[in-house]
């Protein structure tokens, strides 16, 4: 555990208490069973806003608390523990980061203040296929009159169905595959020509496929400069990856805790199954992985807070490591519970399903191994 400031400690403790009281896993299960397409509970989301979680990385000038990414990561870790489904990552970390990095003063004033207040849901729309590949953006934006016209599609946009504001990566020059020629746009969720199809996924979160048909936006909707979207996008994605890794760390840690408890309480052959060395070593290895992962996640978040040059590599490290650890933890959770772990009534399946989705979003371990190697120059 990183050495936390007093504010950070308070934030984490508050998050821990709130999650236990208001958003245990049972709340997520209920949401899933309700079949509600939004993928989150608006009442809980409102409470998050009231507690100031939506403004943790937002500057005080725009109504935030400026506690930084490590602070927000601590909250996400706690919500990840109980699979709390909310637009917190998408709105208060990902979209807010894009605005912080690339936004004009006017854009920040307009949108960051609303994000900090918990007044809107925001999303980042990058990928167009089932695999993360930001440079393959094909959705086009063409200059038209005093603005731009967008055409194309986006796939699996987290909170894309509920978002009031969508940061859209579009191609204004070059070919899919080129990093150059991308531009980011701020598009409102109710824009004419935008169709959103909510998806029913295994992890029961709110994703949507978006179709843009002649969606027109004003020149003021460009985030950063036309053609200069890539560096903003990459930096935004790195922050999103680190934030998601923090959530995944919490999910893995909870999967582990529940499993550890079962090892101590389930008896077979007249003894707790945790007395079998075959399981003891696997639990100990999983614990080792969790500790390694925590270091990576915290280092990535701190690097973002400090503006370190290695933030990108650390974000890839954190995302890959968290992915592998959560993969293992979720599999072990099912296996070590035996038959009961295979039942829908048990939580293991919920963790397993969330694990694979979180692993894939913003690039899986193989994507980030490749990126890590490139960043290291080989």
């Amino acid at each position: 555990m990183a050495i936390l400031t007093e504010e950070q400690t308070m934030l984490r403790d508050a998050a821990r208490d709130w999650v236990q009281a208001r958003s245990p896993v049972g709340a997520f299960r209920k949401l899933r069973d309700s079949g509600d397409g939004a993928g989150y509970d608006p009442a809980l989301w409102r409470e998050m806003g009231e507690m100031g979680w939506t403004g943790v990385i937002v500057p005080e000038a725009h109504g935030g608390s400026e506690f930084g990414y490590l602070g927000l990561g601590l909250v996400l870790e706690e919500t990840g523990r109980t699979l709390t489904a909310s637009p917190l990552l998408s709105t208060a970390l990902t979209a807010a980061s894009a605005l912080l990095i690339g936004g004009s003063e006017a854009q920040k004033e307009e949108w960051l203040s609303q994000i900090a207040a918990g007044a809107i849901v925001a999303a980042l729309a990058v990928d167009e296929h089932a695999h993360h590949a930001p440079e393959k953006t094909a959705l086009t934006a063409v200059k038209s009159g005093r603005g731009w016209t967008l055409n194309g599609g986006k796939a699996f946009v987290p909170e894309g169905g509920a978002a009031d504001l969508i940061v859209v990566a579009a191609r204004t020059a070059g070919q899919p595959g080129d990093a150059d020629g991308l531009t980011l746009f701020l598009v409102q969720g109710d824009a004419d020509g935008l169709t959103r199809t909510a998806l029913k996924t295994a992890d029961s979160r709110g994703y949507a496929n978006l179709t843009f048909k002649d969606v027109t936006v004003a020149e003021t909707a460009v985030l950063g400069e036309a053609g200069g979207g890539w560096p903003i996008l990459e930096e935004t994605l790195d922050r999103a990856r680190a934030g998601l890794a923090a959530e995944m760390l919490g999910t893995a840690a909870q999967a582990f805790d529940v499993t550890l408890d079962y090892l101590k309480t389930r008896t077979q052959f007249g003894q707790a199954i945790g007395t079998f060395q075959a399981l003891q070593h696997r639990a100990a290895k999983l614990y080792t992985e969790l500790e390694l992962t925590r270091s990576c996640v915290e280092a990535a978040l701190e690097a973002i807070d400090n503006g370190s040059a290695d933030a990108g590599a650390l974000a890839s490290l954190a995302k890959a490591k968290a992915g592998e650890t959560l993969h293992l933890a979720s599999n072990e959770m099912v296996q070590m519970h035996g038959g009961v772990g295979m039942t829908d009534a048990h939580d293991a399946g919920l963790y397993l399903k969330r694990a694979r989705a979180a692993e894939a979003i913003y690039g899986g371990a193989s994507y980030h191994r490749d990126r890590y190697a490139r960043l290291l120059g080989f």
Partner: protein
Amino acid sequence: MADLEAFRNEARSWLEANYPPSLKTPMTEDEAPWGGRKAVYKNPDIKLWMDRMASRGWTAPTWPKEYGGGGLTGEEAKVLEQELRRIKARPALMSFGVWMLGPVLLEYANEAQKKEYLPKIVRGEIRWCQGYSEPGAGSDLAGLQTKCEDKGDHYLINGQKIWTSYADQADWIFCLVRTDTSKKHEGISFVLFDMTTPGVEARPIKLISGSSPFCETFFTDVKVPKAQLVGALNKGWDIAKRLLQYERQNISAGGFGGTGGGLEIEDIAKKYVGTDADGRLADHDLRARLAAHRMEAKAFALTVRRVEQELRAGKGLSPATSIIKYAAAKLNQDRSELVVEAIGLQGLGWSGEGFSPREIGETRAWLRSKGNSIEGGTSEVNLNVVAKRVLGLLDHQ
């Protein structure tokens, strides 16, 4: 050898004449020919195929003819299997009776029991389920508590089973019960009874994959005729263990049935991940892991073949058989993970718009595959057995 070729020709022409053309499409889950009194046949040819095969005893090819079986030698059965595969025939009958119960009845049951139960299994008339696991007795199966009392002219059974696959679909159950509470393994008996007997109740349990193939099964004052005890009283554990051998052997032989709808894993990956200019999978990291998996799969197939060859050559059961179930489970789980990874987020759909039925099928199959290392005895228990029995590594005393 000439005889075998004659058998092959005969089997081939019979299959060509008798395999219903409407079954040439891949089998869907709701078309699985489980038989039994409750079966509903979407397509009457499924039943026709079962009946035709059963009329020759080929739903249980090596069982003796007197009990309805095909009376084939091991070699002939192998040929029949090859010929069935050649025409890509669907299974005529899927059956716990054929795979698990029948073989132990042949070995342990009395003549009247064999005559009563085996032909109905061959014909797919009675569907069986397996009442082994209990809430407190999974890996430690011999810790089972379901009570069976001698009431003079019948037995009285009280207790609970769990994870009973298809208990709600089955007609009869083969069940492990406790007939002596003063001993562990020597207090277990093996009984058969009708699931419609008063006091039997099966409640489906939903799996993480969304389907409900197994149940909690409750017995309240269930009266069972004494003639339905197999083997001697308190000698059921040997039968139970032998049946588990058949179960594991069967699970392994058939793999775990991850079909991928006929597509090989590399084709799926190419479709969703794309290829580079040289035709290699664009994601080189995934490519290396897929190649490693394909090699494992080949190594596994070669091992299964070697075990079979040694068995046929009369060298007995190879020690390698002990690793087959563990390896098969791992292989199928690895495959499912790789498929879902290759399909990406498109492989994590649950229902509705945006996902093809095949994609959703792969997602569900991936979730179902997690049970492979639990059902039929967990992988840990399997490895414990290998370590102790095969390698002689005993617990420290």
